[in-house]
């Protein structure tokens, strides 16, 4: 992984090779877990970073639930390498990994991601067939059991925000849900998207404030301040519904309602030049600055147990 190119976009096969290489190079720190298979049968790979102990409190990060948001998967690759480089070198990350595990799912929606490389670069959804419709796929970030089917998702299978026939109908979503539920000790859940430069916390499906709104807001502010300290990239932050729009059935609303207090969604660069087509030369700066936001949330999670 030392000669892997972090400045270009990669196919699913290349990402899978990277994952296997990283595991081989760091057998005492990194392992690969298969949490299920996608609709089309691809493995759902999660990297586990752990320094030992069983069922430690953990942090979940996913970087690719919407397949066309290529900078997120690329950022996930960079994070994985960064974690292996910084453990034992960086005080904050070392302290986190000495007490907690980190789970990283670089490609949450591999069918969609493969499809963006083979057929349609702008594909967002899963690739499941919808009975009675010629339109394929479900928005995997409208398929969670949190305000499922309410305003902020579409009941039309042809829509980009189609919520699916029922909550957790998508195997890519259900696999994460089962993993998180069975683990039972996930303390922070961070989902990474692009674009718009936002850091959001629950809720998206309701205007009701989260019980921990003040604390989540304070942590978000610290995270975006740290993120901006590198290149001056400005982020807005707040609850999903107040910051961007009403969105029902999203992952972090479900995780928060399931007891994971530190539930956040990032929307990475940019604010409106390239959108989902961010040039590859921006991958590393995007990842570097996002890491600062991420480490702020992870450090806070370590130091504020609940």
């Amino acid at each position, binding site marked *: 992984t030392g000669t892997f190119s972090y400045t*270009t*976009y990669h196919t699913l096969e290349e990402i899978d090779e990277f994952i296997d290489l990283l595991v081989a190079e760091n057998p005492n720190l990194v392992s690969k877990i298969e949490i299920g298979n996608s609709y089309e049968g691809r493995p759902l790979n999660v990297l586990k970073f752990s320094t030992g102990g069983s069922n430690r409190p953990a942090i979940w990060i996913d970087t690719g639930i919407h397949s066309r948001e290529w900078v997120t998967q690329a950022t996930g690759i960079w994070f994985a390498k960064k974690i292996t480089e910084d453990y034992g070198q960086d005080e904050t990350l070392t302290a986190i990994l000495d007490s907690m595990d980190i789970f990283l799912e670089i490609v949450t929606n591999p069918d969609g991601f493969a499809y963006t490389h083979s057929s349609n670069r*702008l594909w967002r959804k899963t690739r499941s067939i919808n009975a009675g419709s010629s339109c394929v796929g479900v928005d995997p970030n409208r398929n969670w059991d949190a305000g499922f089917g309410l305003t902020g998702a579409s009941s039309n299978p042809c829509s980009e925000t189609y919520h699916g026939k029922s909550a957790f109908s998508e195997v890519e979503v259900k696999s994460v849900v089962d993993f998180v539920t069975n683990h039972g000790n996930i303390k922070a859940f961070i989902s990474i998207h692009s674009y718009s430069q936002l850091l959001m916390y629950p809720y998206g499906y309701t205007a009701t404030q989260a019980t921990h709104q003040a604390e989540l807001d304070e942590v978000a502010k610290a995270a975006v301040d740290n993120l901006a300290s590198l290149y001056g990239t400005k982020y807005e932050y707040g609850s999903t519904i107040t910051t961007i*729009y009403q969105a029902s059935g999203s992952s972090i609303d479900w995780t928060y309602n399931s007891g994971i207090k530190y539930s956040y969604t990032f929307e990475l660069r940019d604010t*409106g030049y390239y*959108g989902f087509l961010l*040039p*590859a030369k921006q991958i590393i700066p995007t990842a570097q600055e996002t890491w600062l936001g991420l480490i702020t949330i992870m450090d806070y999670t370590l130091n504020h147990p609940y």
Partner: protein
Amino acid sequence: KEDFSGHQVLRISTANEAQVEKVRELEKLEHLQLDFWRGPSYPSIPIDVRVPFPSVQSVKVFLEANGIKYSTMIEDVQLLLDEEQEEMLAFRSRARS
């Protein structure tokens, strides 16, 4: 591969709730095959939408007729995709050699 030649991404700036509602009407017109990259929400938040070439004129006429401001964020989606592909191919070629 899907060809996005002539597709534009428009950035729509709404001034009030009534204009947001107008854009929501646009969202419901399935025949236009619009792809909202950032959907309509509040007047202060920009809306980004990918418009296929055959719908570009209709969408712009609709926005102008309703006094809704917009700018072109991406002139031709396919040009950006071609650049992206060229970069990836160049990387693979370097990697092989």
